[in-house]
């Protein structure tokens, strides 16, 4: 019987398979289609101080190997989230930790949302890498110095396990990893979507109202594995890996590259059963390879 419990920077996860922010709503929408007993954590949709309408339509475009989206973080504000969403989630879903994904238009905005969360959620994931909002989002994730500043501010505002979700489009992930480490982050989330664009050649306009969007899905997985591998070699911080997990093999690659847990995202849209498939596949792999715990897989590459 494989031990599937992992600790992600203080967040106790019953399994190493989480649901990625933005692809699992507020955690209860997939009830009936997802086996929650195999889910290690739910990362809720991005939350800021006030409600946010998101971008104009169209907001997405299917592409080979995945999806380009520019939803733009539409969501209820933190007050509604705490008053209605969290209690409803707790009532509907027992035993699966809830991670609040937060963002802001300013350092103070990030800190305010984090502070308001108090201890009503189990961890906080900072989104500093959303490519689809003008103010906030990726603007805080592009420069290690600015990144360190906003992470430090949120760190002061909360005692919850703190994850920072980083952007993939960097020459090297290391300075960003170090900035998070120095600013007191407990874990890293890798990766956010890759900036992308699709053009309607007949109408000669961008398909997305936001012009550009973020690429997710199967095609980005090898790029995500590389970033997780680089980050793991640069830090002791645990890593929640995401990007193109469509099956257990994809997840196991992440774990071997150094991730402590993985998140399933875009694949859920096509197949909500993927969460259970990934969990089952990891357990089978551990049995086959003789690992007593999924924790033994973390960074377990046999190199040169």
């Amino acid at each position, binding site marked *: 019987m494989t031990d599937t419990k992992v600790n992600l920077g203080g967040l106790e996860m019953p399994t190493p398979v989480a649901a990625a922010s*933005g*692809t*699992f*709503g507020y955690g209860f*929408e*997939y*009830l*009936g*289609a997802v086996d929650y007993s195999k889910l290690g954590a739910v990362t809720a*949709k991005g939350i800021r101080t006030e*409600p946010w*309408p*998101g971008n104009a*339509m*169209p*907001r*997405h475009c*299917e592409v*080979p*190997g*995945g*999806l380009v*989206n520019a*939803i733009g973080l*539409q*969501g209820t504000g933190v007050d509604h989230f705490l008053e209605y969403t969290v209690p409803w989630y707790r009532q509907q879903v027992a035993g699966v930790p809830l991670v609040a994904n937060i963002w802001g238009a300013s350092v103070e905005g990030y800190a305010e949302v984090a502070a308001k969360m108090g201890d009503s959620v189990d961890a906080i994931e900072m989104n500093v890498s959303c490519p689809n909002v003008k103010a906030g989002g990726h603007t805080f994730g592009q420069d290690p110095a600015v990144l360190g500043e906003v992470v430090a501010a949120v760190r002061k505002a909360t005692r919850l396990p703190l994850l920072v979700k980083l952007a993939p489009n960097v020459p090297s992930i290391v300075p960003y990893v170090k900035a998070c480490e120095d600013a007191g982050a407990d874990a890293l989330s890798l990766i956010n979507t890759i900036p992308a664009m699709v053009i309607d050649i007949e109408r000669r306009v961008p398909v997305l109202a936001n012009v550009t969007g973020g690429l997710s*899905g*199967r*095609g980005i997985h090898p790029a995500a594995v590389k970033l997780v591998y680089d980050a793991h070699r640069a830090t002791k911080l645990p890593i929640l890996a995401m990007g193109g997990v*469509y099956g257990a093999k994809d997840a196991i690659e992440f774990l071997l590259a150094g991730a402590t847990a993985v998140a399933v995202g*875009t*694949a*859920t*849209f*096509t*197949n*909500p*059963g993927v969460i259970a498939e990934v969990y089952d596949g990891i357990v089978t792999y551990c049995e086959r390879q003789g690992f007593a715990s999924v924790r033994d897989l973390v960074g377990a590459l046999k190199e040169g």
Partner: protein
Amino acid sequence: MTDEKSTVVSHEEIGSGYRRLVVEAPALAEAVTPGQFVHVRVPALEASALRRPFSVFDAEGGRITILYKEVGRGTAALGQVRPGDALNVMGPLGRGFPEKCDGAALLVGGGYGVAPLYFLAKRLVASGAAAGPVKLFAGGRTKADLLAIDRFEALGGVEVRLATNDGSAGVKGLVTDPLDDELISLRNAGSRFEIFACGPDPMLRAVAMRATGTGAKGWISMDRHMICGVGVCYACIQKTVRGNSRCCVEGPVFAAEDLVWD
């Protein structure tokens, strides 16, 4: 809601690129109501392809029927499924039509938009939950775009009015032409009515305007590209008086007075 491993019972071409798909899906067939939709994983597409949403044409005896037109890559690939094939069908999803009607029930459909209206008409006729007559107003470019008219007529007591752009069936013009005649006579008779509509956006807008204009209840089923179908992704947005609403959860059926048109 479940993601049911269904089995294809039958799949027929019904002309002009339209197809009728019947799947064995007991839980779904039991639970689905008119105007709700199902989210289908298309086997012939690559593993990462998104699901495709379809409103339900009929649900009976553990089976659901979908009426669709080949309009793109997804529906083209769906056309390849054969009886006996397994099909992942998630649902029932979304908010459907009310199953009662205070007065005459005016069902207005364009093209394959008649699909959920047939399911609604069937239920209203069976339950007698409409305080007035049930009338179908179906429109399309040509006769070939008027679907399942015989099925509506077979329900008994459903009056059918047709309109085609080329006059190949019913009146030559838009479906709103016979609808307007009806609205006038209803107003003159002082009769109450509600409008239930599904079809292309311009038709829905025209119908919604008439509902709000006459002060009648209008129930408008919006058709949007979707990703998740369950309300998690916020891609299928329709502007309403409550802001950016999700067609897959707050819809696809909206009250006419709630809709905001760009």
